[in-house]
């Protein structure tokens, strides 16, 4: 099976920003322009996460989403501050194919996952996880890595699968934006814990990091942000490199 190469946009409307450790935001462009650029480079999907909506307790801003969706003929996942079925329905109507849930399910009401899966189908419900490592375990964080939840990542991933989630996006608070490689140990454990696809984010600093992650953790997809935003590599560079190293990716 092809490993999916996904472009991740962290958005503080109306800009795509690139946080380091989920802090210190730098503007890198606008969502619709970057999405089109990565689509043209051959990205398999684009993910759009409004990283401040949950933190500031406001609703997700819809304008940029529709504009971004219009540029794409590939799947488009959207998340950030999703609290209700109505929020999700609105996102699907704006052109989202999948919706990411984090804070509300972790901190308040995990049954949102069950309801969403029954209405929208499990393939459309993705759980976004912000993992932070403690001495001997990983904990789920929310709101850009600011809020603890006392939920153990490896237990939570099994719970969300039982509740009907169709996919997991695993981000690492410790590794995000540092470009020093992925948390391979955690990635491997999460991939092996569930039967649903797992997409890994946070840490790609060079092409070798992506290869190492795929070979060792075997995720269904890899989400890339900094490498692309800072024009260190294009999606095409990544795919060409992986193919040369006998890792299957789509055209």
């Amino acid at each position, binding site marked *: 099976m092809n490993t999916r190469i996904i472009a991740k946009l962290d958005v503080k409307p109306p800009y795509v920003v690139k946080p380091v450790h989920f802090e210190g935001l730098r503007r890198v462009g606008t969502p619709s322009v970057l999405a089109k650029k990565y689509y043209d480079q051959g990205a398999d999907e684009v993910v759009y996460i409004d990283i401040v909506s949950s933190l500031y307790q406001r609703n997700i801003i819809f304008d940029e989403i529709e504009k971004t969706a219009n540029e794409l003929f590939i*799947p488009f996942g959207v998340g950030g501050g999703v609290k209700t079925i109505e929020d999700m329905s609105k996102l699907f109507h704006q052109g989202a194919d999948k919706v990411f849930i984090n804070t509300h399910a972790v901190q308040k009401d995990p049954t949102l996952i069950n309801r969403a899966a029954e209405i929208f189908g499990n393939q459309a419900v993705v759980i976004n996880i912000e993992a932070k490592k403690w001495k001997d375990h990983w904990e789920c964080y929310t709101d850009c890595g600011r809020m603890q939840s006392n939920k153990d990542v490896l237990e939570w991933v099994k719970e969300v699968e039982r509740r009907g989630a169709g996919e997991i996006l695993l981000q690492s608070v410790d590794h995000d934006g540092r470009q020093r490689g992925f948390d391979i140990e955690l990635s491997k454990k999460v991939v092996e814990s569930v039967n*649903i696809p797992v997409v890994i984010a946070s840490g790609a600093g060079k092409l070798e990091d992506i290869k190492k992650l795929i070979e060792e953790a075997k995720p269904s997809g890899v989400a890339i942000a900094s490498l692309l935003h800072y024009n260190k590599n294009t999606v095409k560079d990544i795919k060409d490199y992986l193919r040369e190293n006998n890792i299957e990716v789509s055209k």
Partner: protein
Amino acid sequence: MSNTIGIVNYGIAGNIHSIKKAIEAAGGKTLVINKPEQFNKVDKLVLPGVGSFKDAMQELENDEFIEPLKNNKKPILGICLGMQILATVGFEYGATKGLGLIEAEARPMLVDSKVPHVGFNTIDVVNDNELFYGLEGEEYYFMHSYEVINYTNIVALTKYSNHSFVSSIQRDNIYGVQFHPEKSREAGIKLFKNFINLKRRG
């Protein structure tokens, strides 16, 4: 012939928008169909589908689409769940009667790998079909946990972790694709182009 493609709009979850956009990129005219009376304004139909088999059939019933779809003679293209509900019966959240336009069942994918099956995958056209003209071996985007079991109307197969499943079916004017052409780059737009250009049978 004006060749307008009608997109059947039912339920709360449909991503009509991206299908409309892709058909228009393929050079087609579209009409979003909110009630069955609009069927006579279009030449062909697209039946999208997001959600579960059970919900989709319920929504079609609520909007009184079931009988008009069963009686429809125009070319129709079911996409993803829209292909699955062409079948006689589905087993998502209990057994539910489908439209019964193709002798088939929609059952959970039985595969030794992650489900849902998500991502670009290659199609193997096993029976020549106008819908796939020039598209043999192309990659399309899949996103599904259920598959259609059928033996007599198979157009294309796709392999997922050594499991071969039906990725396209056709009988008379009824076409179905398990993947999302509207999410499959140029190859998807070309498929819509073929659908726009194909002649009505019978």
